[in-house]
């Protein structure tokens, strides 16, 4: 039986494509596998969230223009009108996306308030094939 949060992360609930991608694993399996990867890479979720939030703050622009940050990243913060429901019941989340490109490695990640919350609360990095997938290895390469 799927939890309410699992259902909300599926396509067509909070967004058209959802957050599970093409991954056939359960959310618990995805979380467990990523937890192992974080352990091997010796990085903590708290450190990742701190970097994601720092870069979002540095890349904010009220007209949503791309910004270069830290001489290394190109960031675009999209800021949409309207609230996004918070699956954990807290304050509504900001609607929009942060696209972060590491110009050194050429790798990019996409995240938003919901994916940060899922990472923080459950260690969920989105499923393989999701445009919001925060792969631990890529996070380490891009953020540090």
């Amino acid at each position: 039986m799927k939890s309410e949060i699992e259902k909300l992360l599926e396509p067509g609930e909070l967004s058209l494509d959802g957050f599970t991608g093409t991954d056939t694993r359960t959310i618990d399996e995805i979380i467990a596998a990523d937890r192992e990867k974080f352990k091997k890479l010796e990085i903590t979720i708290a450190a990742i969230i701190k970097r994601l939030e720092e870069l979002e703050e540095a890349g904010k622009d009220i007209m949503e223009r791309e910004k270069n940050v830290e001489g290394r990243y190109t960031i675009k913060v999209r800021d949409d009108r309207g609230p996004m429901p918070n699956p954990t019941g807290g304050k509504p989340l900001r609607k929009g996306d942060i696209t972060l490109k590491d110009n050194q490695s050429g790798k990019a990640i996409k995240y938003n308030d919901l994916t940060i919350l899922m990472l923080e609360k459950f260690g969920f990095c989105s499923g393989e094939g999701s445009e919001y997938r925060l792969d631990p290895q890529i996070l380490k390469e891009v953020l540090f």
Partner: protein
Amino acid sequence: MVQIIINNGEKILEADTEKNLLENLSANDIVLPSACGGRGLCGMCKVQVKSGGNAPTEKEEKKLSPEQLGNSWRLACQTSFTTDITIELPGQLIGSTTYDCTVEEITDLTYDIKGVRFRLPDGVDVQYQAGQYMQITAPAYGNLKRSTYRAYSIASNPQEKGYLDFCIRRVPKGIVTTYVHDHMKIGDTVTLSGPYGDFYLRDSSKDIIFIAGGSGLSPVQSMVYEMIAKGISDRKANFFFGACTYNDLFYVDKFRTLENEHPWFKYIPALSNEDITGDDCESGLITEVVDRYYSDLSNCQAYLCGSPGMINACHQVLEHKGMDKSEIFYDKFA
């Protein structure tokens, strides 16, 4: 028979106790605003329950403050009942209902904003205040299993009957905006509910500053039309519209015409990302342009509509120029 008694008996509904309060109200054409489909996540379907109903749920304890809970506020989607329930609703919500409309026009306003006109059913009228919003329902399409609704500000002139206009910006992977941009066709029937919201022009003698970006132009356009219709010409109104490039501007001719016809109204588009701007546009961020225009805003009122980031930035500039917080209004749904 179990009843829902609304506003001291102003309205009494027969209830289906298998359904929660939100579903019961909706079945009787009283559609409360909601962004989560009745899952207790958005906190928007608040009602005051005077008597009856279950105890507040865990979700309500997260969404409502102790004061709200103490004053009997509940989330309708979390409220179940097996005996009569007495509730209080703002009058405007009793007036809100659903309308099966026909898509009459779809226009490309920019590369990511469409103008949409919905024709109301024959003989039906929606009483709304300029600045309010409606919820537009996208039916299940593609692989989606159920319908979804989202809030959009009305862009039309409240005096003109029979239709409602909207400017809808594409949200990448957004369920409703993808429907509007990629699937909806002229002649389709689409369900709208509302009107909702307390973003409307306040009675005052103060001059007005409108600031908008993107689809935030919608309620401002509606408010300007309302000022014209009501003959409000003793308040100067400057409309600052922020955009990145010329490609992000729309309805320029319309606002220039309004400006020429009404001396109290001025339209000031501002481009933040063009190296060269002509005489027709200001250059810079909308906050910089507003900052340049005014030295003292203590006798003005502002209406803001755009992204949360834009609203926050404008709020700071306006307050810095002496505008009282109580004179700054913006869409709560934003």
